[in-house]
């Protein structure tokens, strides 16, 4: 039989048509699709045993409860704990990404002494020698970012053994002093530049009560809080006291500008009211009688008074220890440097290499959030004392030592930080009051024995004082930060640079969703300006420009925003200053 070319074509065509009637090509299509989904360029999430673990967030002093979904004991997502008293079941975006901090760059891994890698023993010896060399008028200071912890007690005990020990804290770390805010019963809040709706106290608590209080935001910048407040009173920095005076005048029937009159009307209609944010707030609080009453400021039991770093005499510190937390805001080095003597030694106890470690003689790497046992004392603004633990959910890299353990080693103590925390738990039991609220079941029970409290706290629980806040009639300063007055425009610097909402000091990788990928939040590379002011300065929306202040020059992308005060330019992460702007 002869096999022609035509037969070959017929056979090939028939085979192809027949193949289409079999499952083979469709299976191939499916398989290639599956292969394309799992090709080496696409990571495959690891499977494993799924478990739920509980902890407490220590990224800020709010102390929110955290429910961690773990795969093979590795947290893969964090969420709030419904019913948790301090966090009200919510987490902020930073808290939701807390398990990603270890993937940020610039992690401190090695102990450094004067820029060289050192062992723990040699670092301890060097630090101890520096302390011994202190003169009679020289001090050893510890900068504590969150006083009131068990770690703070360890610092105090260490400093008590020295002739000139100073336990200090960055300015503004204890915004309400010995008081908490009875926000649940407050009906009006006058905020002098405090980001009430953008990270103040715990977001769950503030937002759960937002429907119950009127919010008056007094600040020049068009911030997130200003844009959502019931009343925005744009007042230039330095004029807050005058505004407070005007409000008080208006409350007594006197004449005042429209913003002050509206504020007074709101305050008269909605009591009890409080004011927050600086000396102007103190004035208003005195007028409103906000201290020691329901809906105002109430004293709590466990306040630890610590020296503000600004009160430390310039040039007095010989050895300065600085504790930096995972999410600490950057500390202004120029403010610290003034406090140092000529031969001062700076010791940074930090998880980061890019913060205060750049200026330190000794860098002692510390564990990050979720990497070691930590604690959450009473949150700022809470009227009720509380205490909870943040047990480690992640394995910490080698060579790390917690700041509290470091000081115990300096003192040659046999105790560990964990032992001292257990002492705090024993004190809670001895006191006898309060309840333990467990995260897993949301139930509260009376304090039983120490072992029981410890076990519950390690599994996720918080002790809440039942004694609560007691009214106290004295008036005290809530926040004593002096407002920096707005500079007067000059020919060289005709504009006013206002600080916009600042991004966090360290963004985890997924914070890119908020800053770069969506533009929901203004990044540090952008500056907002009123369109009229911008055009007067020869700018166009979206153009590149240089902002110059007496201290610095920075290149930005200009964003025209009619909400910005005319004559001003708003930029994240900048202090109030005179400025000029020029198109590139």
């Amino acid at each position, binding site marked *: 039989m002869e096999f022609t070319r035509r037969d070959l074509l017929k056979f090939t065509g028939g085979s192809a048509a027949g193949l289409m009637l079999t499952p083979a090509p469709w299976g191939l299509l*499916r398989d290639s*699709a*599956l292969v*394309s*989904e*799992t*090709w080496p*360029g*696409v*990571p*495959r*999430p*690891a499977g*494993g045993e*799924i478990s739920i673990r509980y902890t407490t967030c220590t990224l800020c002093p709010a102390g929110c409860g955290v429910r961690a979904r773990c*795969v093979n004991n*590795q*947290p*893969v*997502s*964090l*969420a*709030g704990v419904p019913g948790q008293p301090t966090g009200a079941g*919510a987490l*902020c*975006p930073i808290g*939701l*990404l807390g398990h*990603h901090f*270890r*993937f940020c760059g610039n992690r401190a891994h090695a102990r450094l002494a004067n820029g060289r890698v050192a062992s723990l023993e040699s670092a301890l010896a060097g630090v101890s020698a520096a302390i011994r060399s202190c003169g009679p008028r020289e001090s050893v200071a510890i900068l504590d970012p969150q006083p009131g912890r068990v770690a703070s007690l360890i610092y105090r005990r260490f400093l008590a053994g020295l002739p000139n020990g100073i336990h200090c804290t960055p300015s503004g770390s204890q915004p309400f002093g010995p008081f908490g805010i009875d926000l649940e019963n407050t009906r009006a809040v006058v905020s002098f530049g405090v980001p009430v709706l*953008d990270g103040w106290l715990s*977001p*769950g608590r503030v*937002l*759960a009560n*937002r429907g119950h209080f009127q919010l008056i935001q007094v600040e020049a910048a068009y911030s*997130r809080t200003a*844009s*959502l407040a019931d009343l925005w009173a*744009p007042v230039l920095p330095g004029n807050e006291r005058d505004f407070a005076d005007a409000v008080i005048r208006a409350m007594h029937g006197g004449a005042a500008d429209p913003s002050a009159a509206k504020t007074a009307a709101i305050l008269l209609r909605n009591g009890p009211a409080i004011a927050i944010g600086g000396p102007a707030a103190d004035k208003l609080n005195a007028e409103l009688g906000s201290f020691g009453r329901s809906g105002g400021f109430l004293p709590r039991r466990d306040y630890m008074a610590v020296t503000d770093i600004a009160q430390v005499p310039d040039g007095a510190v010989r050895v300065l220890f600085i504790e930096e937390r995972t999410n600490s805001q950057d500390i202004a080095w120029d403010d610290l440097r003034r406090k140092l003597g000529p031969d001062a030694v700076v010791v940074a106890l930090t998880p980061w290499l890019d913060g205060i470690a750049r200026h330190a003689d000794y860098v002692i790497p510390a564990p990050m959030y979720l990497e070691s046992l930590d604690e959450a004392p009473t949150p700022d603004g809470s009227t009720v004392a509380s205490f909870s633990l943040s047990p480690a959910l992640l394995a910490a890299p080698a060579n790390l030592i917690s700041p509290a353990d470091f000081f115990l080693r300096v003192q040659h103590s046999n105790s560990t930080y964990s032992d001292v925390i257990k002492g705090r738990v024993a004190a809670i039991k001895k006191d006898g009051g309060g309840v333990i609220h467990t995260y897993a079941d949301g139930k509260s029970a009376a304090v039983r024995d120490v072992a029981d409290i410890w076990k519950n706290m390690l599994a996720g629980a918080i002790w809440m004082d039942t004694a609560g806040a007691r009214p106290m009639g004295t008036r005290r300063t809530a926040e004593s930060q002096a407002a920096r007055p707005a500079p007067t425009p000059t020919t060289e610097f005709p504009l006013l640079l206002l600080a916009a909402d600042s991004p966090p000091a360290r963004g985890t*990788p*997924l*914070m*890119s*969703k*908020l800053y*770069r*990928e*969506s533009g*929901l939040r203004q990044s540090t590379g952008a500056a907002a300006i*009123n369109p009229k002011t911008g055009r007067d300065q020869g700018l166009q*929306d*979206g153009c590149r420009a240089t902002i110059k202040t007496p201290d610095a020059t920075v290149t930005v992308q200009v964003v*025209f925003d*009619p*909400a*910005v*005060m*005319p004559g001003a330019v708003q930029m994240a992460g900048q202090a109030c200053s005179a400025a000029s702007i020029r198109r590139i």
Partner: protein
Amino acid sequence: MATKTKTARYGMSIDLDRCTGCGACMVACAVENNVPPLPAQATPRTGITWMRVYEISNGQAFPDSRAAFVPILCQQCGKETPCVAVCPQEAVQVDPATGIVDQMPQRCLGCRYCMTACPYHARYFNWWDPRWPPGMETTLNPDVAPRMRGVVEKCNFCHARLHSARERAAAEGRRDLKPGEYVPACAEACPAKAIVFGDLNDPASEVSQLARDATSFRILERLGTEPKIYYRTARPWVREAAAQPRKEPGNA
């Protein structure tokens, strides 16, 4: 005879007067659904945010400016779903049991017709391979497969959570889910409790009642696509902005 599973129509009601634009919903969504952080060159046009919060203004100048924050996600159109109609690959389908508009990356060929057709700009294209910083792959959700470069993705109401909830219900011998048993990550994470999720077919559900509230509306309702995301506000200017979007610079 087997019991028939109740047909659900999942939807959301978002209170715009509660939303503070904190972005917790956006990051919770990214964590839950293994959406990677994009390279430094990513922009608001190329970034992937299944849930994206937009800031809108009342259009007034200083000092009368006011803002509202509008979370936009796939509106889960229930009728004439535009992305379903245009997809040449049948990579998009509306699940009749839940009303959820599903996107199947395995079928997607990356033509992006659906992105053009979507009236809400709620679909995102993978311009790059999904990459996480070294070691961060260990934090990925094992229930969700990362998508490859060259395909479109979008919100699916955290479909993996629906599967998990169904598995738990099945383990207890139930076919139907209890209210609150299945909640997407954004609704769970919202610190303002602005997002309420549930079955719109259940007249007793909170979301169903809120959807019938007088302050409730849907974005671009006039298109007749029956979106299942409802918004609420007592501020008239926010409703007006949603009904008649203003032209933005560069988008005339």
